[in-house]
Structure formats: C-alpha cells, structure tokens
C-alpha cells in the first residue's frame, strides 16, 4: 500500500474513532465493563490509525499539529482506561473531556502527509515526546481528580490518591523524558538547555511538580493538593499548547 492510501486510511480511522469516542459521552455514564469496552475500541482504532500514519512516513507519527493533538488524546484516553475502576463520574468526564477536546481540535488541522524534518530523526525524539505526552495525561488525571475532589466530598480520599499518583508517576516519567530531551538537544543543537520558551516552561513544570510531590512534608499545605493539581494542569497546558500558539518558541510544532 502506498503512502497516500495509508494516510487516507489513517484519516478514516480518525473519524471512526472520533465516532466511537463521541458515544462515550453516553456509555461513559454506564457501568465499568461497558465503558471500558468502548474506550478499548476507540484506543485500538486510534492506535491502528496512528500506525498507518507511521507506516506512511516510516517514522513516529508526531510531525504536525494534527498528529500531536491526536496522540495526546490517545494518551489521555489510555490513562482513563487505566483508571476505569474509578467510579467518580466527574473525574471520568473531566479526563475524557480534555482528551475529547484535543481529539476535536485535531480535526481543524491539515491531516495530509508530512515528513519529519532531519532534526526529528533521532531515537531521543522518539523517546522524549511520547513519554512527555503520557506525563501530561497523568497530570490531566490529577486535574480531573482535583475537580472531582471539590464536588464529591464522599470520595475525597480516593481523589487525593489519584492526585498523588498523577503527581508522582507524571514527575517520574517527565524526569526521564527531560533527560531524553536534553540528550536530543545536545546532539541536535549542542545544548541540553536553551533559553527557549518550550524548554523554559518544561523546566517550570518539572520544578512545580517536584515541589508538589514534597507537599506531604508540610501538613498545612496538604489540603491544597487539588488546587495544585488545577494550577499544574494550567502550567502544563501552557507548556504544551501555549508555547506553540501564544509565544514564540523554536519548539513550535
């Protein structure tokens, strides 16, 4: 199959998965196994669609805005599947809503064939970007738990655990992702750090969540974890989207 046919197939996959995810607004309200099946179907379709794009360009399909948003929504839905046991409707719909928002936003960008520029062709890029997206998704899970915390007094303990997990696993993954990013920067530009908006905001994210995971050592601050989860999401959103749309960065995607 030629590259063009693979891209067309991936676009078809996008729209079919979009339909499946849209149905989650209904099935997501239902019981665990049904919503899990819907999510798994959407994820499988999305993965196939992304694989078609990858085969068309013979590389990781993260080369433009469409693929970026599409892949981030995949990460968000994957985390949602991982936390499928959580019965808080507000948590589920918030996390799903963010993923669905990015999936919808992807529709507005060109979906055609775009090859990665030579500087993207390194194992460090392949490791750095998907891992960052997974961490962004974990922090989105913290946001969802933070919002559910405010609205569901009876589930607060569970929500705090979810916030903690998002903080901890997100920071762990992001630290490794930053190492990969630093190595990529070194081989591509000769710098593991740049005074570039995306890099600076990534350091901001790392510093912020590093402080967050130590909050347990300050009992009076522990009660503010949900607030920190919301603030962290806003910083993450600006790091991911803001530095590409609102301020100039050499990392614009």
């Amino acid at each position, binding site marked *: 199959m030629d*590259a063009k046919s693979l891209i067309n197939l991936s676009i078809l996959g996008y729209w079919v998965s979009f339909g499946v995810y849209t149905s989650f607004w209904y099935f997501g309200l239902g019981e665990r196994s049904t919503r899990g099946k819907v999510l798994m179907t959407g994820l499988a379709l999305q993965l196939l669609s992304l694989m078609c794009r990858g085969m068309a360009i013979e590389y990781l399909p993260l080369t433009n805005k469409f693929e970026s948003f599409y892949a981030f929504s995949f990460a968000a839905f994957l985390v949602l599947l991982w936390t499928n046991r959580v019965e808080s409707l507000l948590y589920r719909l918030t996390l799903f809503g963010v993923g669905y928002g990015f999936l919808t936003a992807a529709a507005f960008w060109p979906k055609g064939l775009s*090859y990665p*520029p*030579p*500087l993207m*062709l*390194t194992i*460090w890029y392949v490791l750095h970007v998907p891992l960052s997206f997974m961490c962004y998704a974990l922090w989105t899970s913290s946001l969802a738990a933070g919002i559910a915390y405010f609205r569901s007094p009876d589930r607060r303990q569970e929500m705090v655990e979810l916030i903690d997990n998002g903080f*901890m696993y997100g920071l*762990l993954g992001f*630290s*490794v992702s930053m*190492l990969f990013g*630093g*190595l*990529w920067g*070194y*081989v*591509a*530009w*000769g*710098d*593991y*750090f*740049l*005074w570039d*908006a995306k890099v*600076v*905001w990534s*350091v*901001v994210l790392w*510093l*912020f969540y*590093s*402080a967050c995971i*130590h*909050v347990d*050592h*300050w009992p009076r*601050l522990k009660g503010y974890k949900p607030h920190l989860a919301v603030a962290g999401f806003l*910083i993450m959103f600006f790091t991911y989207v803001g530095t590409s749309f609102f*301020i*100039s960065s050499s990392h614009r995607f």
Partner: protein
Amino acid sequence: MLTRGYDLLKSTKLGIVVGFATAGLLMIGSLQMNFYPAPYAGLAGEDIRFFFDKPSLAHWWFYLLFLGLGIYGINAFLCTLDSVLVRLRAGATNLTLYGGSICHLAFLVTLLAHLVGGLYTTQEKPFTIGESPTPFKDVELRLAGLETTQYPNGMPKEVRAVIKIKKGDKETEQILGYNHPVTLDHGKEEFLLKDYGEAPQGVVLRVAERSHHLALKESLNINGANVQAAGLFMHPSLQRPVVRLVANKEGENPRQVYVTLGETSSKVVEGAQVFFEDIKVSQAVAVGLKENPSVPLALGAVLLFCVGVVLVIVRLIKRIAHQF
C-alpha cells in the same frame, strides 16, 4: 542563631517554597523575554554570562532565580544529607530507600552543570571542512565521504559525512550528520552539521595554451614569478566569479590581478595571457563548533538520575505488589 539558620536551610518547607518560587520566576522570565525582547537581544543557548555582562533591572527575575536556585541547591543538599544519615543510623540497608536521595544528588549535579555550562560555553562561527585537511587546534579534519538521502518530496532526510580526524600520526574516523555531531575531548567539543553540499576547492587557469589546476593558496610559475591563487570571489553582486592572483618576484613588490571567469576576460600577468577557465568543486560540510565544559557533569547527572529513578520505580513496584 547558627542552629536556627541551619534548621531553616535544611527544612523541607523552605525547599517547597523555593521550588514554587523558582518555577514562578522562570514563568515571569519567559513571558518577559517574549513580550519585551529588546533587553534580551544576543541571549543564546544556555548562556547566563549575558545577565551579568549586561546587568539590567529588566533581568530582576533572573537574579532572584539565580539566588533561589542557589538556596534550593543548599537546601536539597542538606535535606538529602540529613535523610541519608537518619536512614544509615536506623540501619536501613534496602538500596531502594535511597532512590529519592540519589535523584536529589542528580538535581544538585544538574544545577552545577547548568552553572558551568552557562558561564563557560563558547560557540565558534561555522567553517567548512572539505576533502583537503582543515586544521583545528591540535587536529586536522578532512571529509572522506558524503552521502545524503531524500524523501519522495525532495526534502532532505539523512546526511552521513565521514570525517577523518588526524592527531599526530593517529587518524580516527567519525560520522557527522543531523543529530550526529563529531565530538572531541569527552564531548566537551562538538562539531554540529550546519550545511552540506559542494564548496570551491580551487581554480583552473590557462596560461600559454596550457591548463593549470590550482588549489586555493597554491602557486604556479609564470616567467620566473610566483603567482598564487590568493582568493576566489563569488559574491552575488558579481556577474561571474573572480579569482585574485598575487604575483611575487624577488626584489619586486607583490602585484595583484583580478581575473573574471570566462574566455573573454583574460588578463596579462607577468607578460603572459591568463584565462580563468573553471572552478574546481568538491564535497564539503559546514560545521559549527560548540565547546561546553559542563558536558561530562551533565552526563554524570543523567547517570545519577537514571539510577535514582530506577530505584524509585523498583520501590513503587514493590509497594504495589505488596498491596495486592
């Protein structure tokens, strides 16, 4: 007083406050650099000398950040030392318990690497490496091969340049490409690919119906004078390339003549009609040199982080396994 100061410096609360504060200062700095860029003209790479060489009130956030990270470093060091000592005294021999401390240590090394890199990194103007040796410090660099690949739409995909590096009698080989720099001195010196293609290596001159192939700076003898191809000019403002010839004869002042490429633009040099027939080109790469003495430190930090993160992950897995 001293004890209170020490207690404050090793308090986790201070670490949390400084962590959020440094994050906030970086946010402010980033926004200021973007929306008021004038005071930051010339700031590049990881440079921090800029903020000290050109002090300005506009950089207030950086000075506070610098101070904050200094305090953060001291705090992280003291907290880590304290927690490690507590664990050692308690006889904790489980290595995974020290994962967090190793990550803290890696953070300290990272701060140090940024300090060294920010103060001492230098960058040279790009230069060309061709098929003839290019001297650089105590080595000679030479391009021994250049292969490129393209996407179906013509966009460059990969560049693979074979660079021979000669130091004394020993010659080694490294591959240069995008994301594949040539490194020397444990990665402190790094040649980055800036461009590739063909570069002029010499000229073909016809003197008295005979063609002479001259490399740039090479000479030939015309009627007893040493005539050197001293320079080649291909500026867009010139209609055709021009070669600068410098004639040296013993006991006389050097004379220079400019000859334009082509059959109709010959000049008389030392009594002979000289035609500039052609330009000799060969494959070449343009490279930029970056010298960053902090690279070994940064690699050390990477290694420490990896060890720390692995230990933390093992501990988390153990905890999860225990729950089930």
